[in-house]
């Protein structure tokens, strides 16, 4: 379990990090928490010539806010995200989802930005980021650009990040006071999701004023369950409405098949879990 030899760069600013990537060409890899990259390197499934360790770039770590957004630095660990008050108050779905990631050791090392850049469709933070309309702040040789989550995820393990670009931060629009729940279905506590559903609801006077529902592992990219959202908005937050809305959960998805379930089973899970997530969100 020894990776192939590689050069190691440890920049201390975003600009240096981007420069290191530019210098390395196609063969560089960014190292964040290493929880996904290191297994890949050790199994020699990837053999970058340069590894750019962004662990010592202060700008990338920490959580701030502006008027409309909570801004999560890419290098902020799962542990820090889950217990952060800004996240809990304004993007509680992200906190709920992050709590379910892996186990405590991994949550202390793995990062928010690493998870999104890695773009594993079974990763738990993609669908919440999509559902809440997060925007990725990306730095490259020509400066910074912003990419909405709905455009960021392209395919299995593929984003719009170019080889010389760095995910710097994620702007999550404030969903202050929204009720949320992340319902994850896996086989053992520290495993990845077979299917998971994140819901965030704005309930006012017993009516569902707005709704966001994101599905994990129901396609090669995270999916927003638009049908469910539409069935909820403007309706009373009662059990019947929630149940009926959940029936739309699998619409427009294209789940894969593997030992943990075929497409039909995943579709069933999406509906059941959506129903449960909705009633947990409303009830809790």
């Amino acid at each position, binding site marked *: 379990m*020894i990776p*192939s030899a590689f050069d190691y760069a440890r920049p201390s600013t975003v600009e240096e990090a981007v420069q290191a990537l530019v210098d390395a060409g196609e063969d560089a890899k960014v190292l964040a928490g290493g929880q996904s990259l290191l297994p890949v390197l050790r199994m020699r499934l*990837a053999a970058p010539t340069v590894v750019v360790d962004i662990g010592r770039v202060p700008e990338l770590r920490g959580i701030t806010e502006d008027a409309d957004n909570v801004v999560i630095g890419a290098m902020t660990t799962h542990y820090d995200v889950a217990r952060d008050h800004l996240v809990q108050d304004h993007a509680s779905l992200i906190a709920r989802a992050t709590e379910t990631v892996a186990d405590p050791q991994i949550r202390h090392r793995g990062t928010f930005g690493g998870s999104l850049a890695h773009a594993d469709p079974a990763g738990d933070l993609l669908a919440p980021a999509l559902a809440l309309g997060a925007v990725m702040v990306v730095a490259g040789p020509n400066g910074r650009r912003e990419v909405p989550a709905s455009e960021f995820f392209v395919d299995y*393990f593929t984003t719009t990040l170019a080889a010389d670009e760095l995910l710097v931060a994620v702007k999550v629009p404030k969903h202050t006071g929204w009720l949320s729940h992340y319902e994850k*279905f896996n086989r*053992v506590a520290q495993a990845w999701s077979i299917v998971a559903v994140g819901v965030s609801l704005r309930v006012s006077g017993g009516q569902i004023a707005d709704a966001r529902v994101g599905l994990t592992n129901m396609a090669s990219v995270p999916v927003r369950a638009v049908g469910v959202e539409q069935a909820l908005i403007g309706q009373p937050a009662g059990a019947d409405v929630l149940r009926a809305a959940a029936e739309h959960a699998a619409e427009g998805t294209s789940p894969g098949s593997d030992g943990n379930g075929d497409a039909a089973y995943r579709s069933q899970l999406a509906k059941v879990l959506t129903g449960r997530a909705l009633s947990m969100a409303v009830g809790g």
Partner: protein
Amino acid sequence: MTATVEPEVGKSRRRKEDARLITGRTRWTDNIALPGMLHMAILRSPAAHARIAAIDTSAAKGMSGVLAVVTGADLAEEQGSLPCAWAITPDMKNPPHPALAVDTVHYAGEAVAVVVARSSAEAQDALEAIDVDYDDLPVVLDMEAAIADDAPLVHESLGTNKNALWVFDSAEAGTGGSVDEAIAAGEVVIERKYRQQRLIPAFMEPRSVLCDPTGEQFTLWSATQIPHILRLMLALTLGVPEHKIRVIAPDVGGGFGGKLQVTPEELLVFLLARRLGKPVKYTETRSEAMATAHHGRDQIQRLTLSARRDGTITGLKVDLLADMGAYLSLVTPGIPILGAFMYNAIYKIPAYRFSCTNVFTNKVMTDAYRGAGRPEATFAIERLMDELAAELELDPMEVRERNWIRHEEFPFTTVCGLTYDSGNYEAATDKAKELFDYDGLRREQLERRERGDAVQLGVGISTFTEMCGLAPSRVLGSLSYGAGGWEHAAIRMLPSGKVEVVTGSSPHGQGHETAWSQIVADQLGVPFEDVEVLHGDTQSSHKGMDTYGSRSLTVGAIAVVKAADKVIAKARRIAAHMLECGEDDLDFAGGRFTVRGTDKGAGIGDIALAVFAAHDLPDGVEPSLDSEATFDPENFSFPHGTHLCATEVDTETGRVTIRKYVCVDDVGKVVNPLIVEGQVHGGLAQGIAQALFEEAVHDENGTLTTGTFADYLLPSAADLPSFVTDRTETPSTTNPLGVKGVGEAGTIASTPAVVNAIVDAVRHLGVDDIEMPCTPFRVWSAIHGRTADTSGGQAGGGLGSIQGGLQ
């Protein structure tokens, strides 16, 4: 001032070895480094069946730090064939089993070349520079397909994929009636087919081996359960004189049978160290451990049970297919046979027939894994008892009671000819039912059914026994096993009164150092702290049969007791001389000989010192209290117990949650309740894991797709219920301590308890079986009358998807 000494045996002592082991600050093989040590890495076949057309090692040989690159052809003359010690039938087929494949590979992961370099990174890099041309051959994976007439062959030279057919028939053996007659006359006949999925032992410490060829003896450190057997097998396989080999199993981090093996890696390290004249070390990666350390189980069971309508069993017929994998390893073909005598379990079954066809496939070898043969048997019979109960609409416990051996019937000779020495199934069951609230849970089950609750409740029973404490040498001989089943021990009385105990048992996590110290403390009347237990080095512990099959306490510790008896007998003679009395006038208790009716006495430590000085010993007495003993058991050990499991089954998702797990085990007399508890908890976790989580899956090319812990799911504490454990204590009558084995009991008992509970929860929905592991997908599919197609190959875990996505 004769303080009544509280006996050590029975105390819940914390294990004295644990601080060292769990901090890792100890002698794991991989922690050992020798001057000038080289590192070996192995190139493994990606193909499950292929001819090796060519291997080009020239580039690798020129790489930095590389000292040797060796292929099977280079070693063909000296590597011999890896040993199989159990020829279960005279005509058993046993293909040559080279440590390094010579011209054909037969499973994915088989070693095809090795590199030895100055660092393990350099060795690893050089592997990538070796170029191998494979010509693919047809891959045989499925046992039923493998024995079809026109099946491609795993080993062309054998002309068949069948390794052996082994049969036991109670009518032929004269131990019971004819099963065919019983089935023909059966008022009820139940036929079932169960699959024991392939499992991976998944010990915590990967295997590691280091050989130092620079002394007069070759010294081989290995993370093995069997240092003594390994030494003999190295000698026999490689033709090296046995006295020129010293094997050390330093601290070993788990095995579960997975390190009861003579491995290709051990041979290769030995051969390369010899060739290069320098110490060579190899430590496997976790991926190598998953893919190439032997696997367990992998059987298909066809079962026929006949009974009367009142639930009395009249006959049982067992037809097995057992997957050997591609070769025979140390005891591969015998594993299913270890179960042959256990299908009748605790029941009085009058007619029994067992037949097992062993089959070769292009997968890694199977061999011992916790329980080895008995979990399969216990699963089959305990599942069948539930099926019989369902068929007859009787309570499954009632059906068991009708058939089991009553406590007053012991000793009881079974339809297999084994004599169970003791047991009390009624007592264990009564206690378990009470702790479980059996009647209350049955009531709730009914309510949930009537309500049509989305979450249904099931109750599963397993009233198990097993045979362990391997084994009476004569019985092993009758089964054509290649060795005996005795164990050796020695006790050294040091001049200062301290004690060294040498044991042939070879602990790898069980806590022998603590338990043996407790036993010896009581036997010799010395403080627990004054006893040191030495093991796992053929130089200090020169004789032994090692640790597996729950044998250490029931065989190994009895040898320790016998050695202690001899120490006391020697000391008595010297004490009589010192105290000027007859030997018969002496009492020995609490570590002191006292002259009966006086206050004169001498402690065992005083005697040890006097023996050391040897100034005044009786005539003809040698100046030593040291003793040794070798114990061969007369019988197996038959622990038993009643395990009750309540599961909640979510009919909407298929998820199974264990609501309650109660087990009352009878392991005879208990030396250390805390250790017993630990063995039971760990055993339950592994047995439950077979029921719910673990499965080695191969794709159609024979590649293991569950090769990481992201896909091969092991439960953690978060995935298991809080166990309620208790005991009854019916002493074994075949050893002086009254002890029985406990190492495998939990694993053997728990799997059927869980599956019975799951099936019980959804039987009213038309389900009478769910294949293991009972994943949510399989359970949901069963409930909804669908077949869960899990053959897709991809395991579905996260690192699995990394492999797919990033290659």
